[in-house]
């Protein structure tokens, strides 16, 4: 299932909810679609900038580079690097798994790989300005900082459990 399919399913469900709203209260549906559209227009320029940024990172931080950095060196340092690279990298988790898999296959320390995946999915340095605009800088910095620490910690735990 690609992200387009997911989007279509979401759209279908939301469309049904709108039909239901229309049948109940026409005015409510109008207010809803208008306020949704306004929120989207407000955020759109920023969203476009973030997508451009994502493209840049994809192009200048290729998987081979990540692998060459994480494959060697001292363990704790590699754990930290794993978290950091995961935090900087951005993209669907589907893109993280193959990189992580080849890291493991090449003998990388499992905690490093786990920290890499966790940070990849839930810490976003590239999207930080966007998160800050939506929620406030304080929330964005606290959440990303604590999640980063949690990613390293879970990485270590995972190494101990496996």
């Amino acid at each position, binding site marked *: 299932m690609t*992200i387009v399919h997911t*989007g*279509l399913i*979401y*759209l279908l469900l*939301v*469309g049904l*909810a*709108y039909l239901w*709203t229309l049948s109940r209260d026409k005015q*409510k549906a109008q*207010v*809803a*679609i208008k*306020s*949704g*559209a*306004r929120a989207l227009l*407000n*955020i759109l*320029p*920023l969203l*476009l*900038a*973030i*997508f*451009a*940024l*994502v*493209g*840049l990172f*994809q*192009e200048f931080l290729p998987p081979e580079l990540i692998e060459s950095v994480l494959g060697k060196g001292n363990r704790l340092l590699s754990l930290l690097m794993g978290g950091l690279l995961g935090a900087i990298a951005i993209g669907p*988790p589907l893109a993280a*798994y*193959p990189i992580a*898999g080849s890291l*493991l296959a090449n003998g990388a320390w*499992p905690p490093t790989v786990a920290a890499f*995946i*966790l940070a990849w*999915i*839930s810490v976003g340095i590239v*999207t930080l300005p*966007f998160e800050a*605009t*939506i*929620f406030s800088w*304080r*929330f964005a910095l*606290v*959440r990303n900082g*604590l*999640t980063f620490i*949690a990613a390293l*910690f*879970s990485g270590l735990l*995972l190494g101990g*459990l*496996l």
Partner: protein
Amino acid sequence: MNWAKNFLGCLFRQYIILFVGFLYLGAWYVSPQKALEAIRYGANLFASVTILIMAVFALIGLIQVWVNRDLIGSLLGKEGGFKGLLIAVVCGSILIGPSYVIFPLLMSLRHLGARWAVIAIVLAAWAIKPQMLPIEAEFLGFPFALVRGGLTILLAIPLGLAVEWFMPDEKQPLDTLEK
């Protein structure tokens, strides 16, 4: 106050756009081909999530007209207690889509009275990705994927509460989404 806020918001947006523009200038200087590839990648990504983005913002509109502030407050606010945090874990683990699409959705709940911990827990639990488990297991092995997911579930609530602990405890301004 409102115009000042709007003005600052505009400036801030431009600052990010300018920043990205400068990065692209630098990238172009290093390698025009790579810069083009980057913009192409970003555009493709945007095209692939357009439908999702439209659906999410349509949903934000619906939430604003249907979802009652008292309901959100009692379920996902401080009064919701531990049950609210559990709901956040479940919601986070089944939400699909890039996080930056989910941010505005969560903020609309925050405006309706959801507590910070709930927002942070949804974002933490969002990394569990049960729907991806088979794929993760294929690349990393079943034990790795299972333990990774399990640890993410266990840490979601403590992490969310820790984030909330760092946030000021003021009554949030209950404006609309205009910002």
